[in-house]
């Protein structure tokens, strides 16, 4: 099923913006057309007046200013589905820059990620102080099962406390009390494990488009 938005390129030669989903996916009861956000009409930049919502899939499918829906009887060969937003068909969409001849497929399900929000990189914290470190996580194409924090370069991971669960596609807040006993630079890491058991990689994935990056995030704090 092909969805077309009203937004177009500047030049007439630029392909019109369209994305396709398999019929069964489009009809799965989760994919929807939104006409409101928080009880208000959608802001223009969010796709006023109608926007496709594809939970758990990357935003390129969330066609803004939805204009028409077309049922195709053959695979979609339009530019935005068949040539743009392609990822290597490998685990984690990971390849090396030199790797050639890899099978490419349209980007699809999101991967899990987690972030620190209460501390910025290089933040100063007091020695002996206990800080409630906080952040957000999302599971990608399913819910968050747990969030793990490490203060020792990833040797030991401890489970953070999770905030309210607003549904499997929502951000999930997390918090973890940490006491900084020794002075100096200390690195904190956070990763999430989603409900399907998928977690974040230690090293960044690589592909030409920079897609699906979800390496474990880390920040440094200065304890003094």
């Amino acid at each position: 099923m092909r969805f077309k938005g009203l937004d177009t390129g500047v030049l007439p030669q630029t392909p019109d913006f369209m994305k396709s989903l398999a019929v069964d996916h489009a009809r799965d009861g989760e994919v929807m057309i939104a006409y409101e956000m928080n009880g208000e009409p959608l802001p223009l930049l969010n796709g006023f007046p109608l926007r496709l919502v594809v939970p758990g899939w990357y935003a390129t499918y969330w066609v803004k200013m939805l204009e028409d829906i077309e049922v195709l009887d053959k695979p979609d060969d339009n530019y935005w589905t068949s040539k743009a937003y392609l990822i290597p068909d490998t685990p984690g969409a990971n390849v090396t820059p030199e790797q050639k001849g890899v099978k490419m497929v349209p980007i699809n399900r999101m991967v899990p990620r987690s972030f620190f929000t209460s501390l910025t990189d290089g933040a100063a914290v007091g020695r002996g102080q206990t800080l409630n470190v906080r952040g957000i996580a999302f599971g990608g194409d399913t819910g968050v099962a747990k969030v793990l924090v490490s203060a020792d370069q990833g040797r030991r991971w401890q489970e953070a406390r999770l905030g309210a669960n607003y549904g499997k596609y929502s951000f999930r807040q997390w918090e973890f009390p940490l006491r900084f006993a020794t002075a100096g630079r200390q690195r904190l890491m956070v990763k999430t494990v989603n409900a399907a058991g998928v977690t974040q990689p230690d090293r960044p994935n690589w592909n030409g488009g920079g897609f699906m990056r979800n390496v474990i995030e880390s920040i440094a704090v200065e304890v003094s």
Partner: protein
Amino acid sequence: MSIGSIHRDSGLRRYVVMRTIPVALAGLLVVGAPHLRAENTGSSPEKTAKQSDAHWSKVSVELPTSLTPFPAGEGAVIANAQCLICHSAGMVLRQPARTQEQWKETINKMRSAYGAPLPAEQVDALAAYLSRLISDGKGS
């Protein structure tokens, strides 16, 4: 968006003018919306009440614009005239460093995939300019 402050460079002018198009589209959509609502509300009175809550009134937006030109240098004239037709200079300036050969690939993709009217004989000069411009970690 202030039309009065448009740069005289033709690429920039086209860029700004085109950025106003989404606003025009929104105006058209507002006209179309009541029709869609009327169709939906025909089916059930309950729906009529619910649907009428979704009043699609006119929205006014300030679209982000950029009037930043490319930094001076050999090839900047091409960059300002061609790249800014579709996108901002910032989008280019925030790219990681690429070799001249890699920039040629990117520029040729702009020509073949998106229809950029950049003449083939300008590709080398533009690629050289961009690889010089973003070479020392200035790009993020």
